[in-house]
């Protein structure tokens, strides 16, 4: 009887010990959950001819601040910002509130890079840009549009909600070397709040 018990215990020890250590990692259940939600964002106007709202085709000058302001290409918005100073409007079409972040890429054509310092910070071949939103203070409520990893621009826009907004941009400090057209993209990303 004693021999039998010892044999059983040894057999169990041999079997259980290696299996137990192997199970340490593999027996944990990973949980993956998601709540049904639909994220959708549209912008009513997707173009901005810098310095070309009042008079299309106007050239831009160095070290000048331009606004996507229907009230004037070089007119700063009032504070708080009013809807009429905003060229663009976001609409959250989904069924959840969203946060919006905007990144402003470097210009191509004549290369003008984003200083990432906001609309007051330009430099040689570098521009600065910021976004302003309706009802926010100006300039205190402006948000820097970097070329990546910008801060949140619109917080908690509700489902079905809209928000008007605009952009301020200060051109490079040095003269432009050619009259080549310059292009860039502002990408606005919506994520569930």
């Amino acid at each position: 009887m004693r021999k039998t018990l010892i044999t059983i215990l040894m057999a169990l020890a041999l079997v259980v010990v290696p299996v137990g250590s192997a199970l340490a990692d593999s027996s944990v259940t990973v949980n993956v959950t998601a709540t049904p939600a639909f994220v959708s964002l549209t912008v009513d106007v997707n173009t901005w001819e810098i310095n070309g709202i009042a008079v299309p085709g106007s050239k831009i000058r160095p070290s000048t601040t331009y606004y996507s302001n229907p009230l004037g290409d070089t007119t700063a918005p009032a504070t708080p910002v009013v809807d009429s100073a905003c060229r663009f409007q976001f609409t959250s079409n989904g069924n959840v509130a969203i946060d919006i972040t905007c990144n402003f890429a470097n210009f191509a054509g004549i290369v003008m890079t984003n200083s990432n310092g906001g609309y007051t910070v330009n430099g040689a071949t570098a521009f600065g840009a910021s976004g302003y939103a309706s009802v926010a203070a100006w300039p205190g409520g402006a948000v820097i549009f970097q070329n990546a990893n910008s801060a949140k621009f619109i917080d908690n826009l509700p489902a079905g909600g809209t928000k008007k907004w605009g952009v301020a941009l200060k051109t490079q400090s040095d003269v432009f070397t050619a009259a080549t057209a310059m292009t860039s993209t502002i990408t606005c990303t919506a994520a569930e709040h």
Partner: protein
Amino acid sequence: MKKLIGLIVLAGLLLSACAQPSAPPVTGEEASPPPELYDKTWISPGKVEVGNFYPGARAEYPLSIHNGKDEPAKFSVTYRVADNTGEGYVTAPSEAQGWVIIADPAPVLAAKETRQVLIAVEMPKGTKASPKWEFWIAVKDVTQTGMVQTELACRWLVEMRK
């Protein structure tokens, strides 16, 4: 002898009970989009939450993409560093981009088509991450034109096992 057989059976039962498969269950409900979203581009879900994650584990979830346009559109589906994170979360470690698998990173959707793209995250054994980290999967219609363009992001919130 009967006791011996009984003990062996008992041990076998205990071991089989412990050795559960580790396949991650996926939960969540499929929902129909509101009719007014038919002609809008959208993604679903907005957030995927992963719990009890650990090095060596895998988690996956399908991301639905809808092309609201009247013509076909090509989309890019990419890993993206979170611009901002949820409370208590930090941005994913830099190597996390290599842990994320996107089944179809450049789907072309017909007009009004909805398609699912499987997203998986596989954390290699021996790697480390903060207790709670976040990354985004960005979806962009690359046929957009104009200076202002939109992108939609699905947030992945990962919590490591304690």
